[in-house]
């Protein structure tokens, strides 16, 4: 299976999904059409889930994301929950700047809607708004 690599733009994040199990989305997520942007990621994960790596980590490192992205972010997290339910190792890591309570709360909120824990990880973000 090939990697899914999407370069960032002024309104969309960097995406690096690797069949070795590291799936990362980072930057700004403000796509005008969230379905068009996120659907390739969901399709990739569906294929990946047929033969996943020994461990899968879905990593989010957002600066900002709009509400229309949120539904697809939740769908990706739920795909990890499915992997876990099927007996595979899967984790979700939600990064937020140490001072960014808003981003931390967003991660908690998403975690409350799924059966997989969303691990909140504080760090010192570069170029934090």
């Amino acid at each position, binding site marked *: 299976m090939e990697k899914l690599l999407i370069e960032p733009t*002024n*309104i969309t994040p960097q995406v690096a999904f690797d069949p070795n199990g590291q799936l990362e989305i980072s930057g700004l997520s*403000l796509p*005008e*059409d*969230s*379905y*068009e942007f996120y659907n390739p990621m969901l399709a990739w994960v569906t294929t990946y889930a047929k033969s996943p790596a020994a461990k899968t980590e879905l990593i989010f490192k957002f600066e*900002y994301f*709009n*509400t*229309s992205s*949120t*539904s697809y972010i*939740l*769908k990706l997290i739920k795909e990890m929950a499915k992997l876990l339910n099927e007996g595979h190792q899967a984790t979700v890591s939600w990064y937020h*700047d140490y*001072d*960014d*309570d*808003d*981003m931390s709360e967003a991660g908690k*909120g998403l975690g*409350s*809607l799924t059966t997989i824990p969303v691990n909140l990880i504080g760090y010192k973000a570069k170029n*934090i*708004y």
Partner: protein
Amino acid sequence: MIGSYRKHKEIQIEDVIVSYAGALNMDIVSSVMNLSEVTLLAQAIKLKQRKSLINIVIEGLQNVLHHTIEDSNFNGQHRDCLVMIGKEDAHLCVYIGNYIKATHIPILRQKLESLQAMTSEELHRYYLETLDKDTFPTKGGAGLGWIRIFLDSNRAVSYHFEKVNEQYSFFGFTAKVLG
């Protein structure tokens, strides 16, 4: 035409930090967001307030893009909007204004009135319930944008409709972010 609303609003809002009036697309949303960030940072506005203000700018402007009239009869100004960040009553605020079809007013007014009637806890719960419904359109956030605006401003949202002609009105809202 939108210039007259801008002049009027610049008188009302004190200490205008950012002001844009004109056509809107995603590149302009990005530019307004970046300009807002740089100017708010330069004014040493705390991270939490900056994030709330910029979240409101993002959701408000993307609402304008998703829902404004695409009607060539409206002098080609259908996607003109006005966005300002400044102070009102000593609180930082965002003001966004745009043209809408008069027929859309009742639905929008009803949505805003129902959100205004909710407490912060009820808004938060409603946000999560809506998110979990999994019935999102491909564009737009199924109304989550307005909920987020109300949450980020701690419900300090006011709005107005001004009739332009029989078919169109100008809709503007102010969302305050308390320090």
